[in-house]
């Protein structure tokens, strides 16, 4: 991994109430790269993105973005920082009372004084980049899942952010939309000169588009490496995850007592 880091996550601990979610994770996202953070559902991937975006505060350790410690910023500083970030939410989070056009134009209107003609051109360019220029008049309810995700993508990059965060961008997409979204993530990152973080559990798609991968399990980083290193890894966890095996270090069963007891049977011998 080369060049400076845009995001540094150092020894970050985080707990909801008293339940620890992250237990001292260290990640580094270098400028210009697309990084994947993988792990099973509920392992704290969304939480990690919220820590980067400053929606949550680590109980110890720090997250540094572009040299600034996020949880030390005041309200104004945080908002200035967020203007340079884009976040694609897990379910798109399009504004349902606005058309596709207004969704993409939203941040431009809120944060800039650009005249409406220029906003119009910019919006159509962003929509064109995701292949949906023709859909600008539709309402979010009229879009298919894959289209909604792409519109959300266009909205996320509306102000050309330096850091783009994707929360499960592949969840619930058909194979074609999946490839389309995957390619868009890579192309947008390179075209904007941005840095992207893709939080996902879709291994195969991510291996194709990312530069580096972190695996999180039980609140710690259990493996990391380039796609080539990950594909050929023989660590049991990575192997189970990459090949989607049912049992392994991550057990199939939620912790439970003896089966025969739950069924009120006598012990089997």
């Amino acid at each position, binding site marked *: 991994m080369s060049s400076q880091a845009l995001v540094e996550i150092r020894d970050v601990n985080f707990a909801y109430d008293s339940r620890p979610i992250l237990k001292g994770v260290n990640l580094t996202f270098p400028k210009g790269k697309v990084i994947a953070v993988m792990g099973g559902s509920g392992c704290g991937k969304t939480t990690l993105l919220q820590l980067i*975006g400053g*929606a949550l505060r680590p109980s110890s350790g720090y997250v540094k973005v572009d040299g600034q410690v996020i949880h030390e910023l005041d309200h104004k500083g*945080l*908002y*200035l920082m*967020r*203007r340079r*970030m884009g*976040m694609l*939410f*897990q*379910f798109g*989070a*399009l*504004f*349902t009372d606005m058309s596709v056009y207004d969704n993409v134009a*939203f*941040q431009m209107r*809120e*944060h800039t004084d650009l005249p409406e003609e220029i906003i119009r051109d910019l919006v159509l360019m962003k929509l064109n980049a995701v292949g949906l220029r023709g859909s600008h008049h539709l309402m979010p309810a009229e879009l298919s899942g894959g289209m909604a995700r792409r519109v959300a993508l266009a909205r996320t990059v509306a102000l050309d952010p330096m850091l783009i965060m994707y929360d499960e961008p592949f969840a619930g997409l058909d194979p074609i939309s999946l490839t389309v979204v995957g390619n868009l993530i890579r192309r947008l990152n390179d075209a904007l000169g941005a840095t992207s973080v893709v939080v996902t559990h879709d291994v195969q798609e991510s291996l194709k588009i990312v530069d580096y991968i972190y695996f999180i399990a039980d609140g710690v980083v259990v493996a990391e490496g380039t796609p080539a290193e990950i594909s050929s890894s023989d660590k049991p966890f990575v192997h189970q995850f990459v090949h989607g095996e049912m049992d392994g270090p991550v057990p199939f069963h939620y912790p439970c007592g003896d089966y025969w007891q739950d069924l009120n049977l006598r012990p089997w011998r």
Partner: protein
Amino acid sequence: MTIVEHLRSLGHRIVNAVWRIGYTSRFFLLILLYSGISFRRFHLTIKELFSSGVMSLIIILVAGLFVGMVLGLQGYETLKRYGAESALGSLVALSLVRELGPVLAALLFASRAGSAMTAEIGLMKATEQISAMEMMAINPIARVVAPRFWAGVISVPLLSALFSAMGVFGGYVVGVVLIGVDQGSFWSQMQAGVDFQHDIVNGIIKSFVFGVAVTAIALFEGYDAPPTAEGVSGATTRTVVESSLTILFLDFILTAFMFQGE
């Protein structure tokens, strides 16, 4: 043992209620603090005025008409016993302007527009639209909540005025057109009986206070709703119940101050 448990759950409820009052007050102050853009970009407030105020017009006008007609009938029945039918105009107008207009319009507003505000904001939260806005460095209280608040605060007094006007018309239709009370005395009694300062201004103050209360409750409940289907539906119900009770309670307090039985 059970007594201890009862005491504990009682204490828990009280502490919870105090917390909620604190949260509501803080939320209310934040709305006021971030109200700038509701006026600088007044078109945001106008959009909400349309969806809460204008869309409540029909129910307000129809309800006002019927309430006025009932007042006309009942008032005539009672006044007739004392031979004071000619006072019907002032009875109808005073009841409406002082009490029924502000109270009923606010109650109807709470169930028509307040519940919709709660559901809308609750759903925006459940579908992460509010979080998305925050991540875009846009303050959702300033952008989403405050315009709705001011729209409510502006709408309720206007709706109460329309309610009262419609009610007076309904009373006129029943009293004068159908029953045959003298038209001249109906209007002149009304003119003489209603004092601008004492009745109309106080009525406007009431409906303004109700507007603030109903809208603040509706917005808080929506903003505070757990992001689930039950969460939003529960919040919508609470909006209607809490704002109705608050309106009636505040009405008593305000009436006691305004018309101290003189």
